[in-house]
């Protein structure tokens, strides 16, 4: 995987900051961050295409699965890989999220030094 443009969606400011730093400085991605599902949809329709999306699950208004649904049927199309980032990682949750058409699921809290590596592993799978 060659790190390219990544859309990061999370409603928590701190986590957005940390993940952006981790992915850009450690992983070499170009991160565009959105603080809500709605903003993610706007960003996806506006700029150049993304190579991957890292999507929080629990968000107010549009949650992760709903955002995925709209991204897929709208600006993102069927092919761009989407990876969920979630604080709920029971086996049952993981399975449910996989079935929604995600490339994979990563757990919160994450190790910022290891996040890019874990993301790449999911994307190459």
């Amino acid at each position, binding site marked *: 995987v060659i790190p390219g443009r990544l859309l990061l969606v999370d409603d928590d400011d*701190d986590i957005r900051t940390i993940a952006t730093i981790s992915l850009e400085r450690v992983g070499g991605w170009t991160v565009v961050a959105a603080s809500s599902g709605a903003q993610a949809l706007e960003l996806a329709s506006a700029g150049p295409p993304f190579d991957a999306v890292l999507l929080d699950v629990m968000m107010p208004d549009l949650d992760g699965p709903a955002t995925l649904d709209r991204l897929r049927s709208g600006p993102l199309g069927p092919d761009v890989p989407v990876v969920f980032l979630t604080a709920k990682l029971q086996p049952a949750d993981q399975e449910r999220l996989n079935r929604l058409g995600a490339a994979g699921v990563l757990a919160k809290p994450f190790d910022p030094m290891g996040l890019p590596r874990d993301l790449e592993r999911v994307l190459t799978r």
Partner: protein
Amino acid sequence: MQEAPLPSDEAARLEALRALAVLDTPQEERFDRITRIAADLFQVPICTITLIDANRQWFKSCIGLDVRETPRAFSFCAHAVLQDETLVIPDALADPRFADNPLVTGEPHIRFYAGHPLSSPDGYKLGTLCLIDREPRTLDAAGLARLRDVAKVAENELNALELSHALRRLSDSEQRLHAVMDGVAEGIVTFAADGRVLSANPAALATFAAEPGELLGFGVDQLVQGMTLDEIRARVGAVQPGAELDGRARILVTGRRRDGTHFPLELAISQATVNGEPLFIGIGMDVTHQREAERALRQSERRFRAIFDSAAIGIGLLHVEGPFVDANAALAQMLRRPVAGLRGTHLRELIDTADGVDGDELLSALRSGRARQFRQERRFVRGDGSMMWGSLTVSVLQEEDAQEPRFAIALLEDITARREAERVKDEFVSVVSHELRTPLTSIRGSLGLVTGGVMGELPDDVKSMLGVAEQNAERLVRLVNDILDIERLGAGRIDLQLADAAARGLLEQAVDTVSAMALEADVRVRVDAPGDVHVRADALRIVQALTNLLGNAIKFSPRGSEVLVAVTTSDGAALFTVADEGRGIPPELLDGIFERFRQVDASDSREKGGTGLGLSIARTIVEHHGGRIWAESTEGAGASFHFTLPLYAPGLGVLVIDGEDETESVTRIAEQVRALGHRPLVAHDAAEAIRLIADARPGAILLPLGDRCAEIRAALALDHVAREVPVVLVGPSLATDALLEELRTAIPLLRPGAVLIVEDDPSLGPILCRALESRGLHARLARDGAEAIQAVREAPPGLIVLDVVLPDADGFAIVDELRGEGLLGDTPLLVYSALDLDARARERLQGGKTEFLGKADATPQDVERRVSELLGRVAGEGPPA
């Protein structure tokens, strides 16, 4: 020749003759004596006692003739019976009636005839006593008088015969009647019209505790408390004196024994007329026992009814087809429907089917006897349309006289509140886990970026302090994870996804997870696992448990040492071991090591970064699987952790019961069972056997002959699961061949050809057959649809392994055809196909128990394992999971 005309009373005469029952009886001296005397007295060569039958004359006695009968048409006597006086023919040749009679012209050349009629008591002339000579003669008045006298003697003898017959018939009938009277269980007493006892049979004497003869002359009121004959007649419905009595009407009165005690007496009374006098016949029975049994039954019914009515749990009686027959108040209240409305309502109508499954499938399992009980948590639709969560248990009602189960008991518990509480708790846990993890993500993330050098270089002392913060943040993360896990596991609310799992695969996944940690700690992890150990497990959970144990082992291993992770089989279970070469665990701590927050050294949690929950989680997981976990250690020489899991146990379980402490011979039998491809289980007493039977559902029980056989069999017979398993008594040293025969007798599925494999692939078919043989199963092979159908027609198999794609007909067509012919029934199917079958296709292929296996991911060994698992389940008949 002139034939004698028939007498005017011929029909009645013949009847009287037949009633005498003398025709065609043997010669008798008492008649021969008379004819002998007459022949001598009258000096004639021939004398007979002749009876005139419809078409012949028959001689009861005859002197001087060789025949016993001649045609009536030529008979002289037929003329004689037409008159009261003696018929005398002095010379037959001179008499135009007889001159050309063949008896005159030919043998015996009759010339003289004198015959006197013999009459019955009613006056019918039945025949004659006659004298015959071959010379013409006459008979003077004195001679005629003598002939009359002799004839009278013969007549009396003839009629005496009739009398003796009649007397004997009468006495036979009376004896029979007496025998009946003496033998019946009912007391029979006859009364005269005035109510006095005329007779009483032995049963009546016993009923009233009276001596023979003692009751004669007694009044009805002395036998029946406070009632006269007329009152009894009124009770049975003959209100008018002289009205017909209905002998079938039975009334209950109070009987009085001779000792003055009373008893319930069931009485019928009928009437007859003897010699013009009315006779009353009382037939009665002491029904004390029946009344007591009825009362006890009523009482017991009342008690159970009270339990039924007042139980707080909903109880219903269900027809196995589905409709409710009865329901208690609690059930009606729970479902907000009237009891009367529930009756006749099908269980299906009460279950919310939004989640797809209705109760029919389960009921059908009960009907077919595949299961005796099921329990489900379902949503129920109340009468007002609202929903409730209920825990439903349905058990077959065992009836004494019914072969097929007819009714089932349904128990329903309202668990709406519990469900709601669980939902709230789940939501709470979910929110807490999110709310705790979000700030932890920030703390851990920012510290990680700083200590990882991403934000620039830091002074060493600052970096080390931040490292402490980072490690503790990480520990806090693990603690949150573990606590959430413990919460779920502890509440018993994890649904284990039990499946066949290769033990080695589980070990490898766990080792993968800890590989980075092992590398960092410079600990080598060695895996020692044969590839053929399969366990019944939730793979994710077992990997979690193994990871916890491995993580522990690595943490406590010195650098450069080795951690061994291994699996073996032992006592019919898989035994997992994780062993390290660390400092070990002091003996006093071994037992408590699996308690929460229990570590060998209080400083461990800090130094090693553990949460103190890992072992507790591992134990909970293992115990949820029905396994056992323990630790062993020699202090200073490392620790080893062990746990067992049930083997994924395909094949037929065969239980050997060691009732006599004959460990050696039982071990040998178990080995033989294993050699035959089955799975031996060993129990040492009836209680253990019953437990094993409930868990493992063996197909048969082997019981070595011994003193305790009967006792063990009796105990097994009392258990409703155990008594269904066939028991084979085995001698002390049975050859393996003989044992196989015994098992085949007990378990039809082991008989040759019990498995039918339908497979067109020329190499795969035989491979499957051979694979099954190693499990002690002998399979027939059909290469196409026609062969398959033919094979089933010849001998219905116990299981069919079916390839869906075949040259002439697909699997669907075969299943349809077999079902159409009624040959499929409950035959279990293993459908084995390269096609991906959707739900509808699977529905069409359902036989009895049906399993589906894709060809792509199924090796012949997989098929073999699934087949033998299916057979094990079919033979053991476990309840639906």
